[in-house]
């Protein structure tokens, strides 16, 4: 009895899980990046491969428990013993994981090993407890150097810029939201002023930690306008849950206007 109940429960759980995954009850938001389809494709591929293993494993478990629960008489081993099982694991699972790592590396390489487009718009991102700040280089195309000792939230010097002494810093535009033009390659430089943070935009399929002390480059191209949430996914302290900013993907003309407006507010 217990065995039959167990089998039924396992099958039910498997079917419900599979149903939820297949019908996308809760699912990834639509991708808005150029590289995203590769990642989405990889996830689909993995769902197929892993999902089949999941269903097969649970169903075989359930059916054996159902069939042999409370059986009597002389027990027997599966014909052939363990050898076919080991061969199965090596050949089938081995092929699967080889394929996944091969295709997966290509998806990963497409994101991380491709050099950023030289015409990219460069934006400097600084994360701190518990906000992001973004910096555009302004008309001169150059970022002023950073002076951590000058960082002062009170007078809104979030980056530690010294416009009085550094000419490059004079026209830098610092914003609390990030606006980017659509269909233009973007190169972010991530750095943190205090602890580890992360830059995660679900729709962009981008997640990258900020490492205190390092500048981490991230590049992507957004292909759809809209306003998207940036959230921090690296535990950064008591305000972690509330650390977020918005990414606005704008048409080129909207972006130019927006940036002008931001420059005027400096």
């Amino acid at each position: 009895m217990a065995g039959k109940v167990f089998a039924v429960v396992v099958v039910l759980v498997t079917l419900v899980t599979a149903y939820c995954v297949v019908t996308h009850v809760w699912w990834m938001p639509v991708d808005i990046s150029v590289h995203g389809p590769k990642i989405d494709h990889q996830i689909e591929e993995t769902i197929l491969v892993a999902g089949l293993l999941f269903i097969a494993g649970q169903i075989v478990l359930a059916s054996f428990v159902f069939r042999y629960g409370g059986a009597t008489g002389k027990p027997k081993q599966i014909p052939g013993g363990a050898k076919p099982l080991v061969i199965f694991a090596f050949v089938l699972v081995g092929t699967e994981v080889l394929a996944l790592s091969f295709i997966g590396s290509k998806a990963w390489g497409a994101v991380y090993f491709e050099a950023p487009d030289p015409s990219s718009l460069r934006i400097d991102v600084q994360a701190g407890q518990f906000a992001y700040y973004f910096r555009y280089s302004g008309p001169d195309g150059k970022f002023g150097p950073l002076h951590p000792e000058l960082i002062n939230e009170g007078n809104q010097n979030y980056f530690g810029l010294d416009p009085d002494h550094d000419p490059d810093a004079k026209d830098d535009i610092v914003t609390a939201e990030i606006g980017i033009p659509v269909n233009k390659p973007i190169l972010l430089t991530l750095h943190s002023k205090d602890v580890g943070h992360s830059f995660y935009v679900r729709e962009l399929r981008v997640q990258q930690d900020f490492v205190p002390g390092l500048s981490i480059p991230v590049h992507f191209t957004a292909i759809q306008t809209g306003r998207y949430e940036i959230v921090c996914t690296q535990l950064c302290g008591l305000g972690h849950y509330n650390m977020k900013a918005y990414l606005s993907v704008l048409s080129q003309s909207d972006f130019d206007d927006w940036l002008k407006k931001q420059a005027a507010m400096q």
Partner: protein
Amino acid sequence: MSSNRELTMSSYVGIGVGLMLIVCVEVIFTYQHMAPHTLLFALLCLACLEAYVGVMYLMHVKYERPILFWTIFPATLFVLGFLCYLFPDAFRMLNMRLMK
């Protein structure tokens, strides 16, 4: 239990003197103005040689059953070998640092 019959005290003294000589060679190397990584490589090789001699003779593994050798060396070298995986990030720390 195990016995030390295989080595006499004077051969131990010889090993001790040999190890000290290797240390002297290390010191001489240090003052040859080699490139740091060449020096590091040379020093590490010599240190590993010393450790090997020490473990095999002073600590007597050579005269124990081979399984002892095959237990301690693979386990230790496995851990130390794979810890090398963290060095690429040390170079990242050098090359991608925020503050020059």
